[in-house]
Structures are given as structure tokens and as C-alpha cells.
């Protein structure tokens, strides 16, 4: 399985190839296979939920991660040593993810891990990786992973965290649209951490919280909440939910006429949901993002990613979460180049000293918690009239620069 051949074909073929490999692997006893793993390509294990509710995002992460690997290999690798991506389906289940991480570490002898798309899954992969001294670069939202209890020197976090994401959106919408704020929160870790981020950011502006409603994950009918929200007369409605819940909320809020009375803002405004929902429901809705393809006007690195993606995938553009897959693998491979080896301690030192421009300007890993200090975009969804092409859906209204001060301080997180 030469990695270049794989990259020339689609993900489906990759999975088929991997399947053949798996069948072969079953035929060979475990103890025999272990003998082959020490030399050869640089292996990056990539567990993401390619089946299940977040499969759209995860499959794009795989595509983008493969681009990062291809880019590294085309540039000659590490003195000719090529990189290889080992994709596994974690099924959005921490137990499955931990098992797959064990497989990748113990049997495939991966050099590094990257991936995951849920707080609990990344924490469980991180636990397995740090116990075994394997570098793991997580690309999913979480505040916990920065904190001392879960952090280890092997833990890196390319993903945004709720504190910086919600903070960026909050600092934009609160001074602009008013201090009366209502919260609609998906009742699980993501919703809670995001709401906490907004509340922290709101303190500086003296926001007044007029209402808080929690809804279960996967709610289909939001309209029952709207009369209460209207009665509370907020200036801004902060909706802390994700995926399909996000689309259902804006669709129903638009039909209900909620937008005439208040602004709606999400911590993360998803490119994929906007494409699925169309311009109407999302018109005038605000939200944060790690990436939007329109950044290419400003950053050559964004253009580099978009062009590579367009060339390989039928002129489409990478999604925000997909691009994280690129950035996560890219950062690791930049670290390899800088360290000149895949040796773990040398890699950690190299990553800590690294300044890299993967896809949206310069980033670096903060030394105390290995959080990638990076810019956060605040987006507004365009109305139908302004949409020029299929993928022209957002305008970037604000950018929170890549600065340490937007993160929780090291001492706050428990690092010395």
C-alpha cells in the first residue's frame, strides 16, 4: 500500500484498500506483524467518526488530512521518508475510539495520533495516547483537554476551544447589538462549555441574562421555546448547539419571525449546515469559525489548501471542520521537518518552538497547555441577494487575532 497510490484515488478506494489490508492482517498472527513496524513510513493514526451523525464533517477531515500528507510527500518527505495516514472509524464512541487508538499504537505502531470530533472521544484517545507516550494532536472542541488533569506533554490541541470561540463571538455581538441576552443551550458538554465562554466574555460588557433554556441533544421542535424567548425581549439570542440542531433552530426561528426582534448568534456557524439549509434560514445569523474558504483573499496558505482541495475534489472547497483535519496533520508534519526525526521528545521540543502557517496565518502551540494559539473568525451568513456562487455563503465580519490573551491563563488551567 504505497501512500502515493492511495492519495491519487478517492477515499472509497482507500477504504477498500484498507479493507484488503485488514483481511490480510487477520490472516497474519499479531506477533508476526509487530516485527515489521519500526522502520518505514511516518505513520499518523487518524480516528474520526466517519459513520454516524457527524460523518459529513469527519469525511471532509479525512480528505483534508490526506492533502496534508500528500503535500508533505510531494515536497520529498523527511529526507525521502514518506508519511502515511491510517484512518479509523471511531463511531463517535469513546470506547471504540480508545480501542482503535490502542490498535493504532500497539499494532500499527503509529508515530503520532491526530483526529476526533467530540469532547469525550478526544479525551479518551488522549488518555490512551498519553499513557503510552504517543503524541496526540486533537482537532475537536474542548476546554477540558487544556486543563491539568487531562493534559500531558504528549497532548496537543489544534482545535479551537469553547472559551476562545464563544469569547470571539461574544465580544463581537454584545457591544454591537445590546446587553439583554437569552441563551438556548443544548444540554450536554458542548452546550455548557460554550455558554460558559459567552458568559465569561459578557462580563466585560455587563450583559444582562434574561433567559436560559436547555434542550436535549437532537431536539426536533424548537418552536415551543420561542414564545418564552420573545416574552423575555432579548437583544441577542445565543444558541449553543451543533450540527442538525443548528439547522432546525434557524429554520424554525426564521419561520417564527424571531429574527425581526433579535439577533441570533451561534458559537460555531457550520459551513456544511449552511449549505444544507440554504441562505434564507441563515440570513443575518452570526457565529464563529476556525476557517472559511474566503480567507484565501488574504492568506496564501488558505489559497494553497483550497486549490489543492479544488483540484482533487471536483472544485469543491474544504469545510471549516475539514480544514482542521488538514491543520492537525500539517502541524505534526511541520514538527517532523523541524525536529528532523520522529523521536517523541525531539518532536515535542520542535512543536513547542514551531511557528506554522497551515491555512489561515501564523499559529503556535502555547507551551503550558499545547493549545494552538490561532485566529477565530466571526462570520455572518449572507442574504440570498449577495450570494455570488455556490460556496459564497458567509462574510467575515471580524477576526480575533492569534493571541495568548484570548485563552484562559496557564495558572487558571492549573499549570503551575
Amino acid at each position, binding site marked *: 500500500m504505497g501512500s502515493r497510490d492511495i492519495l491519487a484515488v478517492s477515499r472509497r478506494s482507500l477504504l477498500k484498500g484498507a479493507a484488503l489490508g485488514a483481511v490480510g492482517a*487477520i490472516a497474519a498472527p499479531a506477533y508476526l506483524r509487530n516485527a515489521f513496524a519500526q522502520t518505514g513510513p511516518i505513520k499518523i493514526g487518524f480516528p474520526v467518526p466517519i459513520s454516524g451523525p457527524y460523518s459529513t464533517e469527519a469525511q471532509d477531515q479525512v480528505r483534508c488530512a490526506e492533502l496534508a500528507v500528500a503535500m508533505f510527500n510531494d515536497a520529498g518527505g523527511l529526507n525521502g521518508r514518506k508519511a502515511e495516514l491510517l484512518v479509523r472509524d471511531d463511531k463517535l464512541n469513546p470506547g471504540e475510539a480508545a480501542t482503535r487508538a490502542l490498535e493504532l499504537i500497539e*499494532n500499527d505502531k503509529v508515530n503520532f495520533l491526530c483526529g476526533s470530533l467530540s469532547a*469525550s472521544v478526544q479525551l479518551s484517545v488522549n488518555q490512551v495516547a498519553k499513557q503510552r507516550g504517543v503524541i496526540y494532536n486533537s482537532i475537536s472542541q474542548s476546554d477540558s483537554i487544556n486543563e491539568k488533569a487531562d493534559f500531558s506533554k504528549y497532548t496537543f490541541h489544534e482545535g479551537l476551544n469553547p472559551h476562545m470561540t464563544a469569547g470571539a463571538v461574544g465580544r463581537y455581538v454584545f457591544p454591537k447589538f445590546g446587553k439583554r441576552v437569552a441563551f438556548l443551550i443544548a444540554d450536554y458538554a458542548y452546550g455548557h462549555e460554550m455558554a460558559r465562554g459567552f458568559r465569561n466574555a459578557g462580563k466585560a460588557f455587563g450583559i444582562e441574562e434574561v433567559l436560559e433554556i436547555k434542550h436535549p441533544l437532537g431536539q426536533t421542535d424548537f418552536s415551543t421555546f420561542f414564545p418564552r424567548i420573545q416574552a423575555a425581549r432579548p437583544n441577542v439570542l445565543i444558541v449553543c448547539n451543533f450540527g442538525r440542531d443548528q439547522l432546525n433552530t434557524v429554520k424554525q426561528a426564521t419561520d417564527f419571525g424571531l429574527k425581526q426582534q433579535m439577533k441570533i448568534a451561534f458559537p460555531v456557524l457550520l459551513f456544511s449546515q449552511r449549505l444544507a439549509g440554504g441562505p434564507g434560514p441563515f440570513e443575518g445569523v452570526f457565529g464563529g469559525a476556525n476557517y472559511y474558504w474566503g480567507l484565501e483573499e488574504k492568506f496564501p496558505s488558505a489559497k494553497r489548501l483550497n486549490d489543492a482541495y479544488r483540484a482533487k475534489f471536483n472544485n469543491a472547497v474544504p469545510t471549516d471542520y475539514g480544514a482542521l483535519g488538514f491543520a492537525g496533520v500539517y502541524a505534526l508534519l511541520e514538527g517532523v521537518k523541524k525536529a528532523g526525526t520522529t523521536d517523541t521528545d525531539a518532536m515535542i521540543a520542535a512543536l513547542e518552538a514551531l511557528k506554522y502557517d497551515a491555512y489561515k496565518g501564523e499559529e503556535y502551540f502555547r507551551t503550558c497547555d499545547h493549545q494552538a494559539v490561532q485566529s477565530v473568525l466571526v462570520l455572518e451568513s449572507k442574504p440570498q441577494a449577495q450570494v455570488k456562487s455556490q460556496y459564497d455563503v458567509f462574510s467575515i465580519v471580524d477576526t480575533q487575532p492569534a493571541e495568548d490573551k484570548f485563552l484562559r491563563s496557564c495558572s487558571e488551567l492549573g499549570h503551575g
Partner: protein
Amino acid sequence: MASETSAARGATGSAGGLKGLVALVTRHRVLCALVVLALLPFLTPYEALAVNILIFGLYAMGFNLIFGYAGMLSFGHAALFGLGAYGCGVPIAKFGVPWFLALPMGIAIAGLASVVIGWFAIRSRGIYFAMITLALSQVVYYTTYQWVSLTGGEDGLRGVNVPAIDIFGLHFDMLNPTTKYYVLFVFAAVAIALFSRILNSPFGAVLEALRENEKRAMACGYDIARTRWLAFILSGLFSGFAGALYAIHLSVVPIETLNYFNSAEVLMITLLGGMGTFFGAFIGAYVYIMLQDVVTVVTVHWQLVIGTLFVVLILFFPRGIWGSFLKWVRA
């Protein structure tokens, strides 16, 4: 059991070879199970998967006691498995308790829960029994979910660090996958031997009598309610034991261990392998987990493949793999 011993006697019949072999295997079932399980790491693509099969086999074995032998469909065994996992994991992760104390704690907490859940549930039959066990297991799920400071809530419990196990002066490195498998295998072996002993006891016979004809068992003077309760508790202890090993294996306890889906999974494993058979649990676990692992790599629609296969098996082989095999051999 009765049919198993009669098969042993008829070993010298016409289809002697295979029949005799099955009779031999049935007579030395613990030994045979252990021999196969000892070879398991060589029959799976990687060790972590072998550990999962071992653990889910144990879990299904415990579940089989109540479902296959006593004839009660519990839909709440996730609570017992999960509490075993949290009961073992929380003391290790949060209080630094050594593993040899935490492991029995996990079993004890699962046992305690099965005393309570069983006390409520055994008063009902059939679908009502299933619903009550489901409802009570959901209570456990949401309590654990909300109790973030202790259990980690939705993020799951992390930090169940058991890097090494020292027994009688011997040092076992649990980060070595092969060592880990065989250490857990020894634990499992004790449970399997115990389980076989329970089935062989008069109590085991009463259980099957109860499944076959409850009124007749009652007329024979057996205390039905207490037998059922005891069976539920024993089943909970085995499930909790499997859960505790799971926590040590993965070093995390996901909240998903308590999810009702985990109750459905063990039911599927048991049905697949053959309910009410000694080897069914492990055969079911092997086939179910291996299939998932392999099919997942081939297609993202793995649920479709597994689901179809499951429907076919239920329609044409309702006795499960081992059950159908036994029937075919003895026919």
C-alpha cells in the same frame, strides 16, 4: 443440561466422531473455553480487540444466566456493566485506590445495584420485566451523567491508570498488550470456572426448571421469587466484573457503557452465539466484535451489514451459532 448429558451418553452412535467430540467438549467445557480463549490473541487482528471479546464474552455470560438459563429478558444490564466499570474506575482515578481493592469494589457496586434493581424487577414477567429493568438502568445512566465531579459526566471518566499489576511478587506491565490480555484472561478464567460451577449446582438446575415450567417448579417447592432474585444478582455480579475489567483495559470509562444501547448489544451477542448455551456468549462476542471491526473498515454503512446479518440469523438460526451447531450434531 439434561440434553447435554444424554448427548454425552450417545457418543458412540452412528455419527460418532463429531458427536463424541461435542460430548467431550461439553464435559470439559471450562477447560475447552480456556484453551480457546488462551489462543484468542492469535485469532484477532490486534490484542485490544481480543480483550474486548474477552470482556464482552464475560458480560454476555453473565447476561446469559438471567436471559438464557432463567428465561428473563433484562434490558437494563448496561447499568450493571457500567456500574462495575465506574465502581472500579472512580476509586482508581479519583481516590488513588490500588486496583486489587478497586476491582472488588466495582463488582460490589454492581452487585448492590442488581440487588436493588432485581428486587423491583423480579415481581414482573416478560415485557414488563424488560421495561422495568430498562427504566431503572436509565435512572443509573442519568444519575451518573449529572454527577460530573465524580464520574466526569458526558466527557466520561479518564485517568483509570493501572500501568502495572503486581501479584505475589510477580510484575506485569499492563501497557504491554499481550501481558494485559493474559492478566485479564486469568481473572476471566476464575469467573468462567465459577460460572460453570453455578450451572452444575442444584441452583442451576432449578433455574432451568423455572424457565421450562414455572408452575411445576413452584409445585416442587422451590421459592420462585428468591431464585429469580438470586439469579439476577449473580448475573449482575458477572456483568459488573466484566465492566470493572473494561475500565482497567481502556483506562477510561465512557458514559456510553451505561447507555441502553449497551444492553441491546449484549442481547445481540447472546442471541448470536446461542442463548442458554455455555459457549454461546464467547462465540457471539467473537463473531459480533470481529464482524464490526472488519466491516467498519470496508464500508461506513457497517450497521446495515450487521443488521441484515442479524435478521437472517434470527430468522433461520434462532438458536444462535453454537445452539444451531449443537442441534445439527445431535439430530
